[in-house]
Structures are given as structure tokens and as C-alpha cells.
């Protein structure tokens, strides 16, 4: 296995580990209040984070 391939494994395992930790450490997901599949036309205001936001 080359050094780059080892680095790739470290990278992906690190990402998977972070996501697993985050999911277990965060508050539970409220599945009954999940956002609409398509925001357009849903009548629900969207409230996601975006890099253009100043606040």
C-alpha cells in the first residue's frame, strides 16, 4: 500500500469517525418534523446555514 493510499484511509476513517461521534453526541433527530423533500412550493420557510450569512 502506497503512502497516498494510507493517507486516504486515515482521511476517510477520520471523517467516518467524526460523523459517528457527532451523531451519537448530538441531540436526537426529530423524525416527525423532518423538512419537506422539496423546499420549493412547500410553504415552509427554509432556515439552513449558509456561508453568505453574516449572522
Amino acid at each position, binding site marked *: 500500500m502506497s503512502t497516498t493510499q494510507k493517507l486516504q484511509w486515515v482521511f476517510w476513517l477520520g471523517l467516518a469517525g467524526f460523523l459517528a461521534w457527532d451523531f451519537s453526541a448530538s441531540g436526537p433527530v426529530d423524525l416527525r418534523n423532518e423538512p419537506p*423533500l422539496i423546499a420549493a412550493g412547500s410553504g415552509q420557510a427554509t432556515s439552513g446555514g449558509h456561508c453568505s450569512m453574516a449572522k
Partner: protein
Amino acid sequence: MKRLPLAALVAAFFLFLVFSVSVRQAVLLLVGMGMGAALAGARFGFTTGWRQLIEQRDPRGVTGQALLLALASLAALPLMGQFSELNAALGPPSVSLLIGAFVFGLTMQIADGCGSGTLYKAGLGVPLNMGILPLFAFGSFLGSVHLDQWLSLGQTEPVSLSAQFGTDGALALTLGLLALALLGVRAWVGSGKQWIDKRWVWGAVALAVLATLNLLLAGQPWGVVYGFGLWAAKVSVALGAFDPAANAFWSQAGNAQRLTQTVLMDVTTITSIGILAGALWVSAKSPSADKPLTAQQWAIGLVAGFVMGYSSRLAFGCNVGAMLSGISTGSLHGWIWVPLAFAGTMVGVRMRRRFGF
């Protein structure tokens, strides 16, 4: 990784998202994968396109980018006029934007990848970009922590071209400015140049379609930087190194709430994971072959990646969040971002040469 096990892993993650998070996030993962495959498959590098224009007077990359901006605007502006649920990427014109965009344009040349570029190259397995990604995240987080201090240097309210001129007026102005930019490119490269490259064109069309899908599904334009900052913020809070309640940005209701939720509920996070996976899918067929870097180049590249993350937050986005999403949804800040980032890039390509990249 071979494609079959990769497909199985993606399918498992997709089902996990469907049953444990939301159907929308699962579908956005696929949209992100499409973006990653398009970026990596077409080698659609915003950074490379600008560098080729400056160093080789080759306009093909920026023509592809202009096509992407035009197509995305043609879709996004009328859709936003039709559906009130869809938000524009509105950033405030500010001192922070001017400085942030310039520094971002400079550092993205040294780091050889903007926000999306870092993602897809990390997905392809380029060592420097894999190393940059966590530093980009911490830089983005630190930029958000300091954002209120930067904004205190001077800012105005975000300007929406749609609100100012209506959908048709905003679209005409956007397309007119893009045409003007291409005229400037024509003056720089001179006559007898090849303008169209199939690779850039299909990349632009695919990315415009996927960016529009992102807007329709999520209700907000494609973004990269916010998700990175959120990841680092969550780690910092968990380590007890950061108190979000004492910070202007992270104590805002929406940001504070997202800190308590899994990042899998964040739109920008899920598309970014998709981009990584989409690029990995492409790399299974055509692995990247990059030349090894010296220790000095590694150090410089990693520092550039960190500064790039910091400055992207000051600039209210990278080439995706500010340029593509800002311009295509009619935000003035996107049009301020481009010349400043390009000026930074003109310095960055020289520094890049100096360090032997």
C-alpha cells in the same frame, strides 16, 4: 477503493440518512455526489481556470465558469421569483468582504483548490488537499468567531438585485455583466484562442443542473464553507475550548441550534460529504497522480489552507458560496467578491511559482 464496495457503502449511508435523519438529506447526498463526480470528472477547477487565464492566456476555464454562472442564474433567478421559500446567498458588502475575497483568491492558488476544489481533490486522494481539509474547517470556524469584529470595520445591508430590479432586470444585469467580463477576458487573451473545451462545457452544464436541484430541494443555494465551520465549532465546543453563548455569530438562534444537532442535518455538510464521495467514485476509475511535495511546500500549503478557510468566512463564501451562489441568486456581494478574489489570485500565482508548486 473499487466501485462495487463504494456503491454498497454509499447505499448504506443513503438508507441510514433516509431512516435516521431525513429523506431530503439523503437525496441531497446524491446531489452532492453528482457535484463531486462532475467536479472531479471534468476537473472543473475554479482555481485552475483562473491560473490558466493569467499564466497562459487560456480562456477555456473561465468561459466554462461564465457558462456555469449564466445557466445557474437563468434557473435560479426565475425560480426564486416563483417560490418564496427559496433563499438567495445574500452577503453584506463590507470591509470584511473586500479583505476576505482578496486573501481567499491569493491562498487558493497556493493551496491549489478553493472550497469545492479542496473537497473534490481530497476525494480524489490528493495528499495536500486531504491535509488541508481539517485546517480549512478550523480556519472557517475561527473566521466565524471573529466575524463581528471584522464587520464592525464597516458594512452595509446585503443587496439583492432581484429586489432592486425585479427578476427580469436582475437576470438581464447578471447576463450583461457576465458578457462584459468575457469581453475583458477577450482583451487580455487576444485573438486566435480556443474558447470552448468540451470538458469545461459538460462540467458547467452538470454543475448548473445540480446547483439548481440543491436550491429547489434545500431552499438555499449550494454552499461549502458554513458546513466546515460547523464541524470545527462542534469539535471545539466538545473539547470545552469554545463557549458559543459568548460569541456574536454562534449565539445567534439558528447557529446555536445547529450546534446542538447532528451535522448530518446541515445542508452544506451533506452536499460536501457527497462531493467527497463523488470524487472518490471518479478516482476509482482514474486515480490522481500528483508529484510529491517538499516539507516546505507541505507547510506552506497547509498554512494557506488554514488562511483560506478563515478568509472564506470573512468573504461570505468561496467560489461556490459567494461567486456561483451569490451571483446566480442576484447578490451584489458575489460581484464584489470576483474582482477582489481575482486580484488576490494574480498575487497568488506568483507566490505559487516562487514556492515551486
